[in-house]
C-alpha cells in the first residue's frame, strides 16, 4: 500500500499492531502466545473478552509471527455473525483445511469471531468440525462471553481472558498515534477519551480520529462533542420520552434509530438494556422491565417486527413512568 493511501486509512487499521511485540497490553496473554510461536505448536483457543480489547488483533499477530509476512495463506478469519449459517462455515473450513500448508508450521489457523453468536446446535456442529480437522487446523474462537460457548468446546480449548485496557496502556497507544499523525491531544482530552471508551481501544482510536478530523487541538470538550454525536443519545432520548409518558415521540426516536441510523433492533435492545439500570424507577420495576425486554429480545430474534416489539416495551416504560407499571 502506498503512503498516500495510508493517509486516508482508518486509524484502527493503520495503527493495529502487526506483531506480538507491538501489543502493549494483555501482557500475560501475549507471553503465552509467544511460547506457541517458539515451539511452533498450539492448542485450539478461546479468546474471551469485551469488544476492542484485542482478541482478533492478537490472533493476527500470532499468525504473523508464526507464518511470516504472508501469513494470510495459512490463516482464515470468519465472522459468525456475518456468515450465513453453520453449513457455510463448515464448507469453508473444509476447503481451507484440505489445502496443503507452505510453511514449516504443521498446521493452519482458523479464527471464528463472535462465536458466541452461534446457536448451541451450531456450536455442536462446530465442535465436530474442529475435531475432524484437528490435525491440520487450529481454531481460535473469539467471543464476548465465554459462558455463551457450550461446555464441550470450552473443555477442548485453552481459554484466554482479555481484559479492558487500563488507562496507562490506552494512553500509550493514543500517544503513539498522535505523534505519528502530528495531532495535539491534551491531557484532559486523553482522559476524556479513556472515560468514554472504557477500555475499548477500537472506540478510543475511532474517537481520536473523528476528533482529529476537526483539525484543532483535542481537548475534553472536543471529545464530548464527538461522543455526543456518535453515540446514539437517541436511545436515551427515546427512553426518556417514554418515561415522561410521550409514547408518540418515543416511537419517532425509535424510527429514526432503525430507519435513518440503520441500527439493528437487537443492538438498540442491547443499549436499552444497559440503560435500564440508570433509570429513575424502583429496583422492582427495573426487574420487571428487564424481564419484559428479555422477552422482546427473544421475539425479535424469532423474526418478529423490531419496531412493533420495541414499541411495546416503550409503552410499558411509559406506564412505569407514570408510576402505574
Amino acid at each position, binding site marked *: 500500500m502506498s503512503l498516500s493511501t495510508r493517509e486516508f486509512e482508518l486509524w484502527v487499521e493503520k495503527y493495529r499492531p502487526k506483531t506480538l511485540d507491538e501489543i502493549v497490553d494483555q501482557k500475560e496473554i501475549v507471553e503465552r502466545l509467544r511460547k506457541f510461536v517458539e515451539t511452533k505448536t498450539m492448542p485450539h483457543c478461546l479468546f474471551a473478552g469485551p469488544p476492542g480489547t484485542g482478541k482478533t488483533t492478537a490472533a493476527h499477530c500470532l499468525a504473523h509471527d508464526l507464518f511470516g509476512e504472508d501469513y494470510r495463506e495459512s490463516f482464515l478469519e470468519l465472522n459468525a455473525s456475518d456468515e450465513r449459517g453453520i453449513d457455510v462455515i463448515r464448507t469453508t473450513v473444509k476447503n481451507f483445511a484440505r489445502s496443503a500448508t507452505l510453511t514449516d508450521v504443521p498446521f493452519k489457523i482458523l479464527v471464528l469471531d463472535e462465536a458466541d453468536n452461534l446457536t448451541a446446535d451450531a456450536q455442536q456442529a462446530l465442535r465436530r468440525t474442529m475435531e475432524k480437522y484437528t490435525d491440520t487446523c487450529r481454531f481460535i474462537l473469539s467471543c464476548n462471553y465465554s459462558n455463551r460457548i457450550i461446555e464441550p468446546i470450552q473443555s477442548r480449548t485453552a481459554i484466554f481472558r482479555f481484559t479492558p485496557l487500563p488507562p496507562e496502556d490506552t494512553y500509550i497507544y493514543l500517544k503513539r498515534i498522535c505523534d505519528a499523525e502530528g495531532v495535539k491531544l491534551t491531557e484532559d482530552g486523553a482522559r476524556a477519551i479513556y472515560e468514554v471508551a472504557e477500555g475499548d481501544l477500537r472506540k478510543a482510536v475511532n474517537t481520536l480520529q473523528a476528533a482529529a478530523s476537526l483539525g484543532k487541538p483535542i481537548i475534553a470538550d472536543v471529545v464530548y462533542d464527538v461522543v455526543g454525536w456518535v453515540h446514539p443519545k437517541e436511545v436515551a432520548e427515546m427512553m426518556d420520552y417514554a418515561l415522561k409518558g410521550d409514547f408518540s415521540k418515543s416511537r419517532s426516536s425509535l424510527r429514526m434509530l432503525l430507519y435513518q441510523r440503520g441500527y439493528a433492533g437487537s*443492538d438498540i435492545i442491547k443499549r436499552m438494556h444497559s440503560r435500564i439500570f440508570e433509570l429513575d424507577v424502583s429496583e422492582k420495576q427495573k426487574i420487571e422491565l428487564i424481564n419484559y425486554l428479555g422477552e422482546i429480545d427473544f421475539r425479535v430474534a424469532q423474526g418478529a417486527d423490531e419496531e412493533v416489539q420495541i414499541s411495546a416495551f416503550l409503552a410499558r416504560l411509559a406506564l412505569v413512568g407514570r408510576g402505574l407499571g
Partner: protein
Amino acid sequence: MSIPWIVKYRPKRVEEVVGNDDSKKKFIEWIESWVKGEPIRKAALLYGPAGVGKTSLVEAVAKTYGYDLVELNASDQRSETIIKRIVGIAASQGTLTGSATRRIILLDEVDGMSEEDRGGLKAIVEVLERTRQPIVLTANDAWDPKLTPLRSVCLMIEFKRLKQWEVVKKLRDICLKEGIEADREALEFIAKRSEGDLRSAINDLQIVAQGRMKITIEDVGWLPYRNRIEPIFDVLSIIFNAKTISTARRALSLIDIDPDMMFEWIYENLPSQLTDPKDLAVAMENLAKADLIRSRVKLFQRWDLLAFATEIMSGGVAVAREATKPRWTPFHFPERIKFLSSIKEERGVMDSIASKIASRCLTSKRTVISDVIPYILFMLMNNPDYGVKLLRNYDLTSSEIEFLKGKVGVGVVEAPRKRGRSAGG
C-alpha cells in the same frame, strides 16, 4: 390536523357548492317559491351518493336566504314522538308569531331510518302535510321501498357523482388557501380515487398534506382505493371503540384490505386513539403478540395461524380500552410504510459498505455499522474532503459515498452544538 378540512372548507355561499348545477337550480327555485309564499311542494328530497354536496347545499342556501336550519340526522334517535315534537314545533311556530324567524327543517339520511322507526316515517309524512316551513330530506337511495310514502309528497332532486375536474378544482382551491404546492397529477389521483365523493377527496388530501408544503404524485401513490363498503377510517373507528372482540373482528371483514396493511393502520393510530397509558400499554402488548403470531405465519408457512393474529390485533386493541374517554381524533396514515419500503434497499447498501470496511478492520459488518460508521459519518460531516478520500480508500463506489453523505446531510442528526458532559450518551 387541527380542524378537519371538510368542516373548515364547508361552503358558506351557494356559489361555493361544487357541481350538480341543475339540481342546485331546482332546489333554489323551490326555496324561492317558499320565500314568495307560494311553495311548489311542502318538502324536497335530495338524493344521491355520499359526499356530493346535498347537505352542504342546504346549509349554504339557508345562510344565503336567511333561514335558520333545524337539523336531525340518522345517528339521532328518531322515534315518532321526538320527530313530531321537533318537526311539529319548528314547522308551525315561525308563521304563528309572524316573526322573522324562518326555518328550514333538514332530515338527513332518511333512508338510514331503521325498521323500528316506521312510526317515525309515518310521523314525517304527517308533518309534511301541515308544515308551514320548508322541509328537506336527504337520502342516498331514494328508491328504497320504505320511502314510497315520502316520494309522492316530495319534490325529487337528484344529485350525481361529481366530475373529476370539479373535485380537482376544489382541491386546488384548498391547497391554495393552505399554502400548499400540489402537482396536477397528485390532485387528479386523489380525485379519481374518490369516485366523485368530494368529502372523501378532501379527507384524503388533508391526510396526505399533513406536515407538507408540497404534494407530488409519490406522496399520494400509497392511497389505497377506497373500498366502497366501509372506508378504512370507519373500520378503524369501529375497532378502537368496539366493546366486544366480535365487533372488532367483524369490522375487519367490512373492508378489503391486506391484514398487514390493516395492522399498520392500527399500530400507527394506537397512541392517538388510546391516550390512557395503561390502555396503550395493554393494546401495544396485544399488538406485539399479534405481530409475533404473524411472523410465525410467514416463518412456518402456517396460514391457518393468521386468524389468531387478526383477532388479537383487532379484539386485543378493542378490549384494551378501559380508561380512555371517547373523543373523536383523526386517523393518520401509517408513516413507517414509507420507511419499510426503502429500508430493504437501504440495508443492502449499508451491508455492502460495511463489508468493504469490515474485511480491513478485521471485524464484523455488524460491528462496523454500530461502532465504526458513526465515526466516519462524523468525519464526513465535519471534514467532507477527508471523509470522502477515506471512503474512496475503502473502495466505496460514488453512489455509496453519496448514500453516506445523505445520512449526514438530511438533517437527521444535528451538528454538535452542546458542550460539556451533558453531550455524552
